[in-house]
């Protein structure tokens, strides 16, 4: 065990962050160190040949009960010591030969399944000062395809996760409309439905990486984006129902959490693809994602996708809420701040190989990752394995959907020499994912020793592979 907590000495100097950010970043470092320490422990306890950590999080857990208890003795019942199982799993004994003993009984899970006890990928909580106002990050390096499992969708809460009885929950729509309305969940579910697969990304995703490579893993650098299938009522249906009056231009969306979260949404977006979603990935939305009702604004920064939605107020002007003035605004060189930056621009990242993995040796690897854009479909993803000298087109895994994670794959034969790999994407508008240098140039951070802007970092991400197969954060190097 070499990982020391509460010690940032193997990370860059934190003094370049302003005072507020420094605390947050220290917390982020702590979260990452805890996760890496847990992995080290797992690796040590495990006596398997795949210790290299090529796929961190993939199962290498030792099976604490199987040796002592034996499957026959326990009749393959779930162990009482559930704590031993990873989150979302139950611990069962492992038979020496699964073909020689009947397996578990159908329905013994109570009718709702859990994942394998050998799967350990979890969200990390970013250890902010209170657990109520905090966030957690999706383990992107463990992801497959384009859908994020509901239980691994990143979170951001400002006043904790409320427990809301859907039978008592209502949505009130009022303000500049002809007929204000109150809808129960049953009312909302009677309207014609729509399903759509969209990513939601926090605009703070990548905030630590503006100045220089900072965190070590892709979960830390990019884990505030997730993709789900969302089902609900188009907001336009509800607007037709209440009759929007002339002169209206904005809608306030308000949540029923302890922060009573509010954001102003342009009416054009509300009439466009906005949705009042009550389902995620085919079942009711998870509590931490807004149960029973969430506003989904495809391509808009995560914070505007108000969870636990209780009220929509139609008005002529934006409401200038705390979250759209003091937060989620980007200060430029000179002191002016950009406000109402809604669209999350095209972005991609390689998730394998990525930070803190270790390639066992030269040979074939499939480089893979995800690309997404708040403006529509991904048209192309390009990968470099020589630090940006040459870029080759990656294969895109269909279906390629607008405003959705798109999986890319790139076959690569590593010759065992140090390599610098990166991806960049182009969306259907022709917008090319920029370098961090290009972003900092237009946002005026050049010459500033400290951060001004922390949100909306969609720059190219690079990973450096050493001759020993180690993979390190190389943001800014391409």
């Amino acid at each position, binding site marked *: 065990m070499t990982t020391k907590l509460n010690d940032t000495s193997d990370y860059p100097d934190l003094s370049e962050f*302003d*005072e*507020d950010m420094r*605390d947050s970043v220290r917390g982020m470092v702590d979260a990452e160190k805890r996760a890496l320490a847990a992995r080290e422990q797992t690796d040590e306890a495990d006596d398997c040949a795949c210790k290299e950590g090529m796929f961190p999080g993939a199962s290498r857990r030792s099976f604490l009960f199987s040796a002592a208890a034996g499957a026959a003795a326990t009749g393959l019942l779930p162990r009482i010591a559930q704590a031993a199982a990873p989150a979302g799993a139950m611990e069962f004994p492992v038979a020496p030969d699964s073909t020689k003993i009947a397996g578990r009984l159908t329905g013994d899970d109570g009718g709702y399944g859990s994942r394998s006890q050998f799967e350990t990928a979890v969200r990390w909580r970013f250890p*902010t*000062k*209170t657990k109520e*106002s905090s966030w957690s990050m999706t383990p992107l390096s463990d992801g497959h395809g384009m859908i994020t499992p509901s239980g691994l969708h990143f979170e951001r809460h400002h*006043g904790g996760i409320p427990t809301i009885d859907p039978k008592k929950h209502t949505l*009130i729509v*009022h303000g500049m409309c002809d007929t*204000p*309305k*109150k*809808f129960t969940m049953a*009312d909302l579910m*009677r*309207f014609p439905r729509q399903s759509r697969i969209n990513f939601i990304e926090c605009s703070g995703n990548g905030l630590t990486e503006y100045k220089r490579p900072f965190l070590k893993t892709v979960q830390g650098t990019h884990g505030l984006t997730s993709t789900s299938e969302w089902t609900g009522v188009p907001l336009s249906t509800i607007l*037709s*129902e209440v009759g929007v009056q002339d002169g209206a231009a904005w809608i306030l969306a*308000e949540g029923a959490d*302890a*922060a*009573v979260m*509010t954001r102003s949404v342009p009416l054009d977006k509300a009439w466009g693809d906005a949705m009042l979603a009550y389902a995620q990935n085919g079942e009711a939305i998870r509590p931490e994602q807004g149960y029973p009702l969430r506003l989904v604004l495809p391509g808009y920064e995560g914070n505007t996708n108000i969870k636990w939605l209780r*009220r929509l*107020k139609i*008005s002529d*002007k934006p*409401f200038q*809420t*705390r979250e759209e*003035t*003091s937060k989620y*605004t980007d*200060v430029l*060189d*000179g*002191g*002016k*701040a*950009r*406000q*109402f*930056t*809604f*669209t999350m*621009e095209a972005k991609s990242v390689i998730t394998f190989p990525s930070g803190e993995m270790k390639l066992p040796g030269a040979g074939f690897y499939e480089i893979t990752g995800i690309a997404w854009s708040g403006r529509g479909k991904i048209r192309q993803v390009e990968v470099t394995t020589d630090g940006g000298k040459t870029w080759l087109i990656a294969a895109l895994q269909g279906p390629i959907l607008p405003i959705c994670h798109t999986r890319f794959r790139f076959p690569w034969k590593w010759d065992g020499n140090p390599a610098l790999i990166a991806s960049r994407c*182009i969306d259907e508008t*022709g*917008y*090319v994912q*920029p370098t961090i240098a*290009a*972003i900092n140039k*237009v946002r005026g951070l050049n010459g500033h*020793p*400290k*951060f*001004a802007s922390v949100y909306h970092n969609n720059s190219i991400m690079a990973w450096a592979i050493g001759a020993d197969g180690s993979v390190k954060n190389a943001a800014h190097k391409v």
Partner: protein
Amino acid sequence: MLKKQHRQAYRGLLATTIIPLAIALTAGSANAGKFGFGTTPTKAEIAAINIDVMADGRGLPAGSGTVAQGKAVYEAKCVACHGDNLQGVKITGGAALIGGRGSIGTTKTKKTVESYWPYASTLFDYVRRAMPFNAPGSLKNDEVYAVSAYVLNRAQIIKSNEVMSAKTLAKVKMPNRNGFIPDPRPDVHNYR
């Protein structure tokens, strides 16, 4: 074969169900285009959650509060997280409320209510809906006016004898009132 049958069945469904529904929805009545689901909320139901306050003062409730009253509210309910001098308390995560004026965009950027928030209405709105952190939404309107007055006074934005109310709060000119510009994205113009 199956597919064809399925299509025919779907066409049948369209003919018998969806088209009549569409006609019903577009019939020339007062409810044209409407499903009619949901109910009309009472005025009291709306008032109970209609708590937003806009920059021009719309939504500010009746009531008022002085700086002195606000000091008492602050010391009872805010000081633990925001500190004796409104400087913030790291261990609680409570933000600094004052200071940093003129620092935005410099190497010493410090975002506080005083230095960064463009509207006093936001202070009232946010305190009323989400503060104090351990008992959100518990302050009476007079208390919210008072504690807003106290913060604004400690930020040297209003004088110690000024009273905050629906009439006065929206007129407070915040130091960073003109500090925000609309977003011009896309800002990196690299297109193919």
